[in-house]
């Protein structure tokens, strides 16, 4: 690609939040008609950078120029006006409105005189955009009635219809099926050929290598490198992202495992989980892989009694296990870690100690059935030392802790009921590199002490590094059982996204 002046140029961009530096003098440029990948671990600052481009956050320092002239959006509207369309990771959709109204939210065409919205025009435009996505849905459908992946496509259609010079996509494929992903990548290429620039953020490096011309690597809010995709490879990128050799992070001593703790047989539940069978042994980490929305959530929540079981049986320690509420699962010594720490994990108004003991209130009763401060303190101290929780005191509010420490407290909460079986969803999502390694270390220690772990992770290196065996799900069914030599990134992706099957009698 010919090297003419950059369309979008970011220099010395710094964003500070009270307490943390989310971005530290980051600089990179995007050329016209190029697909520029933005890669980095969770918490590397990608989303912050995008939110600055989208006018959501204002930088503390640094400058951005768009086509040579300074670009300083103070509100999302400015970005849209400047022709920068951002597709955010978290949906920016309205379940109660129609698809068309969602696509045009804030930009509805309306009659100068009647002031009424031109619905026909909106519908036609939608259909046009949907055609390019070959996405077949009636623009008059209420958005809430669409599936998550369909909603994701509406998000994309929304950005395309802005007709922006720069289109920014933050994890656009998170909720898409493989075929949808391929279609999207085609669209991205098409946009580039139309001369638009695309900033493409993704954890899936294969996507990056499929569409991107150049990639910028961020780590801990700093710019690490910008390089041409042509002269790099996945391993190099991963090294740059993580900052050290990936293998070194994970060293599971895959010694002998104990008895089978949990067996799941033909479990059917929720919208998509269909006849899943698996077992977990004491001291073992069973990893659950697959593209987002392949049934991981249903599986873990059904095991924890948070989702009604429609079919199949389970045993825990050899005895039948069919929890209909989380309380029942907890009573059997099952611990659960939700992947959404912020809304389904912490109790923001409670202290770390109170957060930790939420699942064992019955066990810390003292005189007259009242909660015993000493017992509670004792329980907290125990886990604080065991999990190396860093808090000023047991009465500090959990919302004041870093993501990593919050996660450790929640790990303690999950362990407290008995620590027989741990069901971990994305245990390291949104925690910094250091805490991540520490949590991996903890999981190793826990399994060493005989805890059985069932871990869902969308972070492939983690899944591969941490799991003794891996079960890959696709559309709610088991499509791969990988152990020993089979546990490769390539195999996981192949099973999750193609019709390759490993270790399952199809």
């Amino acid at each position, binding site marked *: 690609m010919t090297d003419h002046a950059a369309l979008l140029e970011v220099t010395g961009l710094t964003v500070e939040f009270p307490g943390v530096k989310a971005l530290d003098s980051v600089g990179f440029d995007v050329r016209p008609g190029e697909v520029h990948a933005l890669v980095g671990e969770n918490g590397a600052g990608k989303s912050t950078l995008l939110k600055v481009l989208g006018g959501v956050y204002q930088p503390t320092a640094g400058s951005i120029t768009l086509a040579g002239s300074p670009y300083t959006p103070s509100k999302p509207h400015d970005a849209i006006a400047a022709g920068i369309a951002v597709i955010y990771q978290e949906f920016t959709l309205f379940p109660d409105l129609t698809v068309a109204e969602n696509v045009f939210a804030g930009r509805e065409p*309306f009659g100068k005189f009647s002031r009424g919205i031109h619905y026909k025009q909106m519908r036609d435009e939608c259909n046009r955009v949907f055609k390019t996505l070959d996405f077949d849905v009636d623009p008059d459908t209420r958005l809430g009635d669409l599936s998550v992946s*369909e909603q994701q496509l509406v998000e994309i259609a929304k950005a395309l219809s802005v007709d922006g010079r720069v289109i920014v996509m933050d994890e656009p494929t998170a909720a898409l099926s493989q075929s949808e992903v391929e279609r999207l990548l085609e669209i991205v290429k098409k946009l580039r050929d139309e001369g638009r620039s695309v900033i493409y953020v993704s954890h899936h490096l294969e996507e990056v290598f499929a569409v991107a011309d150049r990639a910028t690597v961020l780590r801990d809010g700093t710019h690490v490198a910008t390089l041409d995709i042509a002269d790099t490879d996945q391993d190099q990128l991963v090294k740059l992202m993580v900052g050290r050799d990936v293998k070194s992070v994970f060293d599971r001593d895959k010694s002998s495992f104990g008895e089978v703790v949990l067996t799941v047989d033909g479990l059917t539940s929720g919208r998509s989980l269909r006849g899943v069978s698996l077992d977990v042994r004491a001291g073992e980490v069973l990893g659950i892989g697959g593209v987002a929305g392949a049934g991981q959530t249903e599986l873990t929540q059904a095991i924890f009694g948070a989702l009604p079981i429609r079919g199949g049986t389970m045993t825990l320690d050899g005895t039948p296990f069919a929890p209909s509420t989380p309380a029942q699962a907890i009573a059997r010594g099952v611990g659960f870690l939700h992947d959404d720490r912020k809304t389904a994990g912490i109790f923001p108004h409670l202290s770390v100690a109170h957060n930790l003991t939420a699942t064992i209130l019955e066990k810390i009763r003292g005189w007259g059935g009242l909660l015993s401060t000493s017992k509670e303190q004792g329980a907290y101290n125990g886990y604080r030392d065991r999990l190396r929780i860093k808090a000023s005191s047991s009465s500090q509010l959990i919302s004041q802790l870093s993501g990593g420490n919050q996660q450790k407290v929640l790990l303690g909460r999950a362990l407290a009921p008995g620590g027989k079986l741990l069901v971990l969803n994305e245990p390291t999502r949104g925690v910094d590199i250091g805490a991540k390694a520490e949590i991996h270390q903890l999981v190793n220690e826990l399994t060493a002490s005989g805890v059985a772990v069932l871990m869902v992770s969308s972070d492939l290196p983690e899944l591969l590094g941490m799991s003794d065996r891996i079960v890959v799900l696709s559309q709610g069914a088991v499509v791969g059982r990988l152990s020993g030599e089979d546990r490769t990134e390539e195999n996981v992706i192949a099973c999750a996204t193609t019709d390759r099957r490993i270790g399952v009698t199809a």
Partner: protein
Amino acid sequence: MTVLAPTKKKSSISFVQEALRGLPLAIPLALVVIGLAIGAPGFLTSTNLENVLFAASVLVIPGLAMTLCITMGEFDLSIGSTVALTGAVACTAIASGMGTGVGLVLALLVGAIVGLLNGLIITKLGVTPFIATLATLVIVRGVAQAFTNGRDVIVSDPVLKYFASGRPLGIPFPILLAIVALVFMLWLTYRTRFGRWVAAIGSNRDAARLSGLPVDRIRILVYVIIGIAGALWGIMISAQLQKGSGQLGVGFELDAITIVVIGGTSLLGGRASVVGTVLGALLIETISNGLNLLNVPPAYQRISIGILLVGALAIQAIRRKVPVEALDDKH
């Protein structure tokens, strides 16, 4: 949230379907009407039916404004006090010979100002709407009483009277106003950017901000609209009684909210049921009228309204199998 639990059905919804949500309410309404036609002497007389429509119309105008607010996922409790203050202002102005026109304009202006204050307290001071308007309810009532100093302001003004007994084209003026308001609100709610943005804010406020909608400006505007509707209400009440008083309109806010909720507008925001609100007003006024005809004391009217309110929501909720933890309203 719906996003997390999508259903597979994909009914495409037209403007008409959207507008007619809450139409099922017509069934209980029909039943009540039939029941009264049989049981209550003089119910079916034209004068009486006109009375029902008249009473409902007076309630519809503020009800429609409240629909907008609840669609946004918020409440305004201060409207009852606004009725007292604006009515008093109008009558005082008229009594002091400023002329009816000036009086009405002043009343509407005061209503708008009360709304503006609510909006500013909520958006700029970050006070939850429920509490903010609860406070202004008390304050505005106080201002109204201080303003009238406890003396009813008596007027006998033909122009003002027109808001109670005027009959353009043979239709009582309030009924005409209500019809106009209904048409206007249908258009505003389902056909204009403003209306859709209000629904958008109620549906997902953060998304609204990310989509670049002027969220705070819209919220303030909605409260101003309610203030103005409250002023209209005050004018109509004062027109009926030919006086302004700091005592008028106590508890009106609950009446307005009640018809909106019965009408099927979701308390969680996002879904407006304009026609439902009108039917809600008709249903409630029909019942109280019927009970009056039957010499049934007001007490039973309260009870029936309460049961109606709870029943309506219970049916909705059971149909949608809402989990308990999802019931809390977002004020």
